């Protein structure tokens, strides 16, 4: 199939014809570079050079050229016989006058008519940076959007929140819509006891399945006024993605082939700062040469030869006792990704199609781990006879990966590496056949033995090989539309859409039971119970929309459009998590199967079904292309709340520049618009919140648990949530005003918005004190407000024939406040507490505030220490600290186009906010972080102690840093909170469009090459010596800012090539 298209493409491009030359000029007579010149009805075409010149072969049977250039009106000219050079003058269009954007239900509207904020990003801006995540590629490009890219590796989670989170425990991410159809953006964590703590794997969020190469444009609709038509799902705003379609062509069927390829290399963006003065050992407990240790609390480095590791068969390895500053860095490989995309598009007068094939093959920075994704996308549409039309869009994608594990414990490579003593040559541990590196070889008596140097850690290369997290995803989404257009102004359309995927996760952890080879010290046995689990998630969502649209001009000055729709939604998830016994592990080592469980299997079902029916109305009225009014309303019936609910929105747009005199409008003030909107969105409840239930009993200790059946006796327990059949729908409402302006021939463009959003009566599981017998109650409660401003600006200082230089930036400030929760409840946990740290929504604080214990302080803020040890005391209860939300964020960048070259640079930053760094905690414990390099007894700055007289006295007792750092229990959770501010060089790229004249005698229509980098540099406050603050252990969930030995983020760079023929 591919070969046939390819061949026919070549045939057409090389068909016989006559040469035609010419120049494309603007209204001032200057050449327009980069204009497209195409023979009408064919794929034959070229691009003008810097002076606006072009030349091409026009097939003998053709005589019309179509000229297109950005910012100019399209024009058709006769090609002539080729004897005379053509001169084509294009007239400028003010882009803001005609710009259209995609709004709810994939309705394309003139931007000027909208009373709410929209931003549209084109395909090049998304793909040229080399990001394979459609969400991450929006970072820094739209005001009001908060994207957290986590590790930025292929398949990793990214979170996108518009105008601040407002739902206390529900989804806060923007809805993702592709060609009018809701696309599942689930971010499902894998559960199970240790699934949360000790074996964290980032399985990504499903929104990132979309192939950026298939995207024509992305429109960001921020408020509910814009998204009311999606019902509850649109309450967090929407990312409207329009995919590329085939182009209709007059005359015979023609095809065009587009090929894109990129190769990307990545490496870790930020390592923690290490100390390089002290090596392996624990001299503070009097052991000067402890070769088992993963402590770096040994002697100062002296660069003398010293044996290390175990004595095996009478031999021991020797190395200088010196720091290896790069030992952790050397463990990693470069990540490599090769992304190939080929698209064929073709069309006739009445039909068009596009078929796109994509393959992404990548290897991880973690040796041996990989991520591969393949997808096929087909779009086709046809006008049938009798005023009927139809279109189909199908996307199939397949993911096959083996992902690294994070968190705490055996499976976490990062946890292990950051604890490695500063003198251990990690890269030399690679050869697992070497006894000194081995975790499990059989000694002469057949006993499983380890020769690895440490007794408290496992060889990270062994872990890589023996702990796997395989993930397979198959996904199909798409829609079929049938339409009927009985009259020019009336359209009836039905669209049925399906989004179904199967996400299978298979985790294996090795069972290990090895004794130390060496008996000269008391070595610990190395044991690990092993584990195998399967998490099977099948999601099938069906949406049907029946829409009637009428659009008519009347009374000369008025235009009215009315859309009436009916919507059915069914969302079904069938999920099973099963694993071998969490504590007992595996029976037979190396055999990964659910039957191989030492003790009871764990099995959890998570099946849900939600159905909704809605009717909606969207109407807009325009007056003289200047004043526009819009109204929408929707009524929903949901399976999860008893009563139906209605919600409306209104918006108005006033293009006041229409009233300006022509001279002003064509001169310094080209465009001005005021807009205002108000919208309200209703939302239903999660499934199954009406009735009390009982579940098979699992009784938890702090770590182990008792699972029923118990010694053969079955047991059930009353579940811990108080359910509520009287739930009402929750509502959020938002008011927005804004303006769009353009000055000096469009050299300066501004867009400003102010919004205020209230989300109240939320359906929320409020935490209860356990003494109530329950842990939560589902109620309508709470009020969260978000207020903010968004500013985006573009400035073009230079715009000449050959050079275009542009500066742009955005600024966003969102103030989030949790105003009410529930009587008696000051706060709700956003995520589970780990290490005594939780993230909460607390009354009077912004969403996502950290809650943990603190240093004891006097009322005037001085630290209270223990008078004997000089170490700070900690509070027994917990307190509220900062939030993970930034105070404000901004982005700025520039682009320069010169001849065929274009350069683009984008920075973005977030200011304020905190994150939890387990990395700081664990590195302090083992003495590898930079701060632990200062080991002299010292007085805690500005500290006091409580004297026996009940008064505070200035402290003069020195503390030993060793005791502060190595006693995790004596350090408060506050210690682990770090300033999350940062500036990133998010994207930089340089591309070159090969001039058309060089391609004239090749089969290629267009050829461009480029180099790009993203996440290239990171600047953080001095306080953050630990990690990229965007890291998160909980993917795209509401639990953000939680770096629990999370996947490190990468910088990536590479080159790409695009060509068409």
């Amino acid at each position, binding site marked *: 199939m591919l070969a046939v298209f390819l061949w026919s493409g070549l045939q057409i491009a090389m068909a016989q014809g006559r040469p035609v030359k010419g120049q494309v000029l603007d209204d001032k007579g200057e050449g327009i570079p980069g204009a497209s010149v195409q023979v009408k009805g064919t794929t034959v075409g070229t691009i003008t050079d810097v002076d606006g010149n072009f030349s091409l072969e026009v097939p003998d049977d053709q005589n019309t050229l179509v000229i297109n250039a950005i910012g100019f009106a399209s024009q058709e000219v006769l090609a002539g016989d080729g004897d005379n050079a053509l001169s084509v003058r294009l007239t400028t269009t003010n882009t803001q006058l005609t710009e259209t954007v995609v709004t709810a239900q994939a309705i394309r509207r003139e931007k000027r008519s909208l009373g709410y904020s929209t931003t549209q990003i084109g395909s090049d801006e998304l793909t040229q940076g080399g990001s394979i995540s459609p969400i991450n590629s929006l970072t820094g490009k739209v005001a009001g959007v908060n994207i957290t890219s986590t590790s930025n590796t292929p398949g990793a989670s990214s979170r996108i929140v518009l105008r601040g989170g407002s739902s206390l425990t529900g989804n806060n991410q923007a809805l993702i819509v592709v060609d009018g159809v809701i696309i599942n953006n689930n971010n499902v964590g894998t559960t199970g006891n240790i699934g949360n703590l000790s074996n964290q794997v980032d399985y990504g969020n499903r929104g990132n399945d979309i192939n950026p190469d298939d995207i024509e444009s992305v429109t960001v609709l921020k408020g509910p006024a814009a998204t009311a038509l999606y019902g509850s799902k649109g309450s967090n705003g929407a990312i409207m993605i329009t995919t590329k379609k085939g182009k209709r062509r007059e005359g015979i069927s023609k095809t065009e082939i587009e090929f894109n390829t990129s190769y990307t290399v990545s490496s870790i963006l930020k390592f923690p700062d290490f100390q390089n003065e002290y090596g392996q050992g624990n001299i503070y407990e009097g052991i000067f040469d402890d070769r088992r240790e993963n402590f770096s609390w040994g002697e100062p480095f002296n660069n003398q030869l010293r044996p290390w590791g175990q004595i095996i068969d009478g031999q021991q390895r020797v190395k200088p006792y010196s720091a290896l500053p790069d030992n952790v860095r050397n463990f990693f490989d470069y990540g490599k990704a090769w992304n190939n995309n080929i698209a064929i598009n073709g069309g006739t007068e009445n039909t068009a199609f596009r078929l796109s094939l994509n393959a992404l093959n990548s290897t991880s920075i973690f040796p041996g781990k990989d991520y591969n994704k393949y997808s096929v996308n087909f779009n086709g549409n046809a006008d049938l006879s009798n005023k009927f039309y139809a279109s189909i869009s199908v996307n199939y994608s397949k993911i096959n990966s083996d992902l690294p594990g994070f968190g705490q414990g055996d499976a976490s490579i990062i946890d292990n590496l950051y604890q490695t003593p500063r003198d251990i040559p990690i890269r030399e541990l690679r050869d697992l056949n070497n006894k000194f590196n081995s975790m499990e070889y059989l000694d002469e008596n057949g006993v499983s033995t380890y020769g690895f140097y440490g007794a408290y850690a496992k060889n990270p290369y062994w872990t890589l090989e023996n702990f796997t997290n395989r993930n397979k995803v198959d996904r199909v989404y798409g829609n079929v539309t049938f339409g009927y257009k009985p009259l020019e102004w009336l359209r009836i359309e039905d669209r049925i859409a399906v989004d179904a995927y199967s996400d299978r996760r298979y985790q294996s952890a090795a069972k290990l039971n090895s004794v130390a080879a060496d008996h000269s010290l008391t070595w610990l046995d190395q044991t690990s119970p092993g584990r195998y689990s399967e998490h099977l998630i099948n999601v099938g969502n069906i949406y049907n929309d029946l829409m009637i649209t009428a659009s008519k001009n009347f009374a000369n000055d008025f235009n009215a459009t009315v859309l009436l729709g009916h919507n059915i939604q069914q969302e079904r998830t069938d999920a099973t998590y099963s694993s071998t016994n969490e504590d007992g592990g595996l029976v037979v080592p190396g055999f990964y199967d659910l039957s191989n469980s030492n003790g009871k299997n764990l099995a959890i079902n998570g099946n849900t079904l939600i159905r909704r029916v809605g009717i909606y109305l969207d109407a807009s009225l325009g007056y003289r292309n200047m004043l526009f009014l819009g109204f929408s309303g929707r009524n929903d019936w949901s399976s999860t709340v008893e009563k139906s609910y209605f919600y409306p929105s209104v918006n108005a747009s006033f293009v006041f520049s229409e009233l300006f005199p022509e001279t002003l409008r064509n001169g310094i003030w080209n465009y001005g618009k005021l807009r205002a909107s108000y919208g309200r969105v209703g939302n239903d409840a999660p499934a199954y919140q009406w*009735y009390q239930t009982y579940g098979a009993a699992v009784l938890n200790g702090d770590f182990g648990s*008792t699972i029923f059946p118990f010694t053969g006796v079955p047991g059930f327990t009353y579940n811990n949530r108080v359910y509520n059949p009287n739930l009402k729908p929750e509502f959020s409402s938002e008011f927005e005003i804004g303006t769009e302006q353009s000055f000096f021939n469009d050299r300066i463009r501004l867009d400003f918005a102010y919004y205020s959003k209230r989300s109240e009566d939320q359906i929320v599981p409020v*935490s209860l004190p356990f003494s109530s017998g329950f842990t939560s109650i589902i109620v309508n409660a709470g009020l969260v407000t978000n207020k903010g401003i968004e500013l985006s600006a573009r400035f073009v200082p230079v715009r000449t024939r050959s050079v275009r230089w542009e500066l742009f930036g955005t600024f966003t400030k969102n103030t989030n406040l949790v105003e009410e929760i529930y009587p008696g409840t000051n706060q709700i946990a956003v995520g589970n507490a780990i290490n005594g740290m939780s993230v909460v929504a607390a009354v009077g604080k912004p969403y996502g505030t950290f809650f943990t214990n603190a240093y004891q302080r006097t009322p005037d803020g001085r630290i209270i220490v223990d008078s004997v040890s000089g170490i700070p005391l900690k509070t027994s209860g917990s307190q509220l600290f900062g939030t993970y939300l930034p105070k404000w964020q901004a982005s700025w960048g520039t682009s320069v186009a010169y001849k065929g070259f274009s350069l683009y640079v984008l920075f973005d930053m977030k200011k304020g906010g905190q994150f939890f760094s387990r990395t700081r905690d664990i590195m302090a414990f083992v003495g590898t972080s930079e701060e632990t390099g200062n080991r002299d007894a010292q007085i805690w700055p500005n500290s006091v102690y409580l004297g026996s007289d009940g008064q505070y006295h200035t402290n003069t007792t020195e503390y030993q840093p060793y005791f502060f750092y190595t006693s995790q229990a004596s350090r408060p959770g506050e210690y682990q909170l770090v300033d999350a501010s940062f500036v990133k060089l998010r994207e930089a790229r340089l591309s070159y469009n090969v001039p058309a004249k060089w391609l004239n005698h090749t089969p290629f229509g267009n050829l461009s090459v480029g180099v790009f980098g993203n996440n290239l540099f990171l600047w953080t406050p001095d306080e953050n010596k630990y990690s990229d603050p965007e890291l998160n252990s909980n993917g795209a969930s509401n639990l953000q800012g939680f770096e629990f030995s999370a996947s490190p983020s990468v910088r990536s760079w590479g080159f790409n090539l695009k060509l068409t023929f």
Partner: protein
Amino acid sequence: MKYIMNKLLFPLVVVGVVAGTGCKKFRDVNVDPNNAADVSVELLLPAAQADIAQVYGGKLQIIGSVWSQYWTQNPNASQYRELDQYQPDASFASNAWDEPYSGALKDLDQIIKKAGTKTNYAAIAKILKGYTYQLITDQFGDAPFTEALKGDEGITSPKYDSQETIYNGIIALVTEGRDELNGESAAPGSDDLIYHGDLALWQKFANTLLLKIYMRLSERNPSLAQSGIAALEATEIGFLDEGEGAEIHYINEAGNFNPLYSEMNNAVIGGIQNLIASKTVIDSMLSNEDPRIGVFFTPVGGNFVALEQGFFNTSSPAASYATPSPAVGGDADQDASAEAPVKLLTTYESQFLQAEAVARGWLTGDAAELFTKGIIFNMSEYGLGEEDITTYLDNAYWAQFPTSGTTEDQIRHIITQKWFSMCGNQGIEAWSEWRRTGYPEFFTISRASRIGNQFPVRLPYPDDESSNNLNFPGQKLVTDKVWWDAN
């Protein structure tokens, strides 16, 4: 406008009516397929019983046994340092509050509500509720009781009752449960993990539990204790005797492990032996040549080397110290630990309680004989032979009942001997009895104490209460005594 009315609003209304009524059945899918809508009391009872044992034999065993100076934190690990530092976080002990309230007590409440004609289920549930509430109030003091467990009845912030109210309440509950036990009604079978439906034993359990409850009030309200015990004697039900202990048995299968063993042998802790022998108990056992030392502890190289309480900043490696034994589920290295039973109320405890009641003159009987029976029951339950027992009874200082001594002397012997017998198997009870009576007298302040020269005498309330309960009375210090701790 009329045009719009006719052509557009009319279909809207029609569609609306269809959507609103015709889809009712389509939408009727909100019943949870992943959980049971209802279950019988036979399924709730074993879960509630095992839950009590989960806490009693797990978190409370650890806290009790460290603060009773049987065990201490090993120097190479750090899991329980905050216990030896006498400054447990609010979250440290939360399992001992959260699990019984949201697990055992709530399920027992459900049994009482659902039992109907299965009156013996309700009776047993009441007795066990009393047992569980005592566990909570003994460690935390004032706690929700009268308004507790009513989250589904609209009480989401239950008020705190004084410990005195709770004690009066649990006396009434257990008495009521005992008196409602009725042989004519159906008895549980294998779903009763403790007594397999033996109602006579449940009556004795209730009486012994009441004896324990009354005895706890010996310093705060001796007259109530005395009259209550007199009433127990009058029932002629008696108290738990040999072979009648309330135990739950575990097997060597993950998920059904002894709770202490499962605290150590799980994928997170990975079998690290955090707990080792404390010098306090080892020294006193050695000086008494107590044969139980080899029952309750695993020696290293034949020696019972112990660490001074809280001295984890030592240079000696952890592996050189004796560890709790498999008999109490405390040896992470030995599979036999998985099968250690959790002992909720023991035969020897019953003897020592009676001995004390007799010594105080609140019960008739022979205190010396009861005291000796307590020792014999304890030793034989842990497999010691007659010879060992006789030698100990003949020679050990703490085995010689001071028949002619003062009441206080006798109590000192009874409680200290009870402390030996509960070593690592009823740690939390031994700690409560130490708080009540001050015996044994030879506890040492932990080397790691962060509260100076004081002992901890209660657990801090969990953060969930301070954050979510409008009626939370405020956090307490670990040095604040509970109400019955009057000495």
